[in-house]
């Protein structure tokens, strides 16, 4: 009913900066899509083109099967939540919520009812008469959400709505946003540079890099089969370890150290190997291992992050706090947990005979078309 189709959309700013490069995303009705990427990768630009606040240089944006390239933001049937909330400082919370409805000539009784409903949903009832400056950051954030939901739009657009909040509030607001979106079933496009926020909120993730899509997929698929070294190091915390290796048969040489895996025959001899910190574990006697020279340890409580070097290259392992650490530690990893990337393009390489991961990738690739 209100799907969003972004087709080959580019943005070229005056001065020739190409901030978004031919991006295509098909968002199903009711889906929660998160755009994630480092600062300056064009997330906000893409979102603002969907909102109509930025002109579309190339390509088309369709909302509910209508091409909206030349439609005013107010006519696009979308609502947006801004990073700095953008509440009208001179209006009470009630008026902030009601402003959009008033401008559309909604009858007074209906405005009252909708504002009351939104206020109840967001627990803003006792603040309706206050001005925004008399609210805490979290409450302002709720008002900004309220302003979006009273309009009952076809889509919500969020531009880093939680980045001005403290860590704890961010976690709870994250939950609220997710619940609210599920309850209302409104198609949502959410921009963040926080990979954790992206993982927890998204039905599907869109990882952007330099204005281009690196990968689209469900959070866990992106986590387990990152399409490139960029995605691998961006999604997941701590970032995936990436080590250059030489392959000889089924043996991987990391400088002077060696790991043996299986079914590597189809891979190039020079490649980048990805090892998630949480997949590494202490090697038992007799197991093959990499020796980590420990530099320093970060205690996180439930686990500890051990930073060190393997043959001079940095590597991080997430280990249980019970393990005693010396100067060095022998680590191992299940061969099936290794990721392989091309050293020059950074693209993911698959072991041809690794059927399970091949199938998983194919399913992931088909998914947008199915949904």
């Amino acid at each position, binding site marked *: 009913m209100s799907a969003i189709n972004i087709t080959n959309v580019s943005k070229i700013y005056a001065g020739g900066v190409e901030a978004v490069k031919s991006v295509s995303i098909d968002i199903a009705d009711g889906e929660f899509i998160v755009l994630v990427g480092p600062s300056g990768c064009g997330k906000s630009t893409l979102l603002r083109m969907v*909102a109509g606040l930025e002109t579309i240089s190339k390509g088309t944006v369709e909302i509910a099967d209508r091409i909206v390239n030349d439609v005013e933001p107010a006519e696009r049937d979308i609502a947006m939540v801004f990073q700095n909330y953008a509440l*009208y400082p001179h209006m009470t919370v009630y008026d902030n919520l009601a*402003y959009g409805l008033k401008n559309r000539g909604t009858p007074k009784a209906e405005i009252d009812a909708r504002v009351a409903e939104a206020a109840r949903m967001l627990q803003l009832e006792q603040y309706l008469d206050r001005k925004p400056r008399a609210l805490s950051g979290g409450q302002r954030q709720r008002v900004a959400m309220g302003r979006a939901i009273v309009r009952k739009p076809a889509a919500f657009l969020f531009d880093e709505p939680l980045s001005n909040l403290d860590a704890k509030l961010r976690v709870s607001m994250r939950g609220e946003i997710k619940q609210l979106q599920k309850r209302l079933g409104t198609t949502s496009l959410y921009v963040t540079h926080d990979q954790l926020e992206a993982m927890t909120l998204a039905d599907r993730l869109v990882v952007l890099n330099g204005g281009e899509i690196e990968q689209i997929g469900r959070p866990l698929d992106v986590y387990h089969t990152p399409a490139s070294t960029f995605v691998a190091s961006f999604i997941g915390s701590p970032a995936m370890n990436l080590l250059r290796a030489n392959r000889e048969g089924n043996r991987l040489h990391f400088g002077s150290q060696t790991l043996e895996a299986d079914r590597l025959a189809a891979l190039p001899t020079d490649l980048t190997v990805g090892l998630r910190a949480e997949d590494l574990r202490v090697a038992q006697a007799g197991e093959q291992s990499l020796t980590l020279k420990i530099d320093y340890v970060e205690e996180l409580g439930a686990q500890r992050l051990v930073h060190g070097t393997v043959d001079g290259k940095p590597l991080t392992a997430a280990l249980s706090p019970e393990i005693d650490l010396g100067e060095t530690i022998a680590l191992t990893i299940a061969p099936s947990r290794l990721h392989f990337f091309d050293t020059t393009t950074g693209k993911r390489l698959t072991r041809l005979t690794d059927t399970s991961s091949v199938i998983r990738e194919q399913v992931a690739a088909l998914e947008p078309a199915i949904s």
Partner: protein
Amino acid sequence: MQRVKIFDHVILLMGVFIMVGPLVVALMTSSHEAADIHRNGLSILPGGHFVDTYTKVLTKEGGFTGKITGLRMMMNSLILGIGFAVGKIALSMLAAYALVYFRFRFATILFWMIFTTLLLPLEVRILPSYEVMTALNLTNTYTGLIVPLLASATGTFYFRQFFKSIPDELLEAARIDGAGPFKFFIGVIVPLSKTMMAAIFIIMFVYGWNQYLWPTLMTTDESFFTLVRGIKQILLVWVGSNIPDYNEAFALAILAMLPPVMIVMIFQRWFIKGLTESDK
């Protein structure tokens, strides 16, 4: 902070004395008779003619035609001051709104052109302005008095700077909320500019109230005379054995000062309230 307290107060008191002293002298002197003042000079003690002098100044029909009263002059001054302030605010807000929120070609160049030409003092363009007004038959009208001076570089500049400081997201939120240019101006910009408007109102009211040269040129009909001109008129009677009505001149001066003082006091409260409240 604590250490210099007494010294602070001394400085403040000196300031108060220097600023308020002349006013007290004017007020006290105005309650003496003209002859007394002529003989004894200024005075800091009250004389006995306070009520007479002020009643006379406000209601006496004077001037060459014998028709113009102090009250009338005060009215004229008020019309001029308020007309100025309101007109200038309206005009410069609209100009600044156009400059900041509408992308049109050469906006920056236009702005600086307006700005530099308007920076020229009134006196430089007073003759052409007068020519235009006579050609339009607007001498001896309030329109002629007010309109030619309405365009304000200062006002436009201040409002432009202020609008630029309003976050862009507010405009974007309003666009998504379906507010067009007019609704955005009335519903968001004007309420947000209240404090700015109060500040400009104070400045422009006082400026308009104190105008002397332009009203002198534009009006020959005495019923358009302002208080500032009235004071001058009283002192002009120095002919023959007449003593100028010093007391009346002082009384008029005091009266001429009251409305601006009141405006400043009223709007200042608003102004400060706005300043302290409007942090988002």
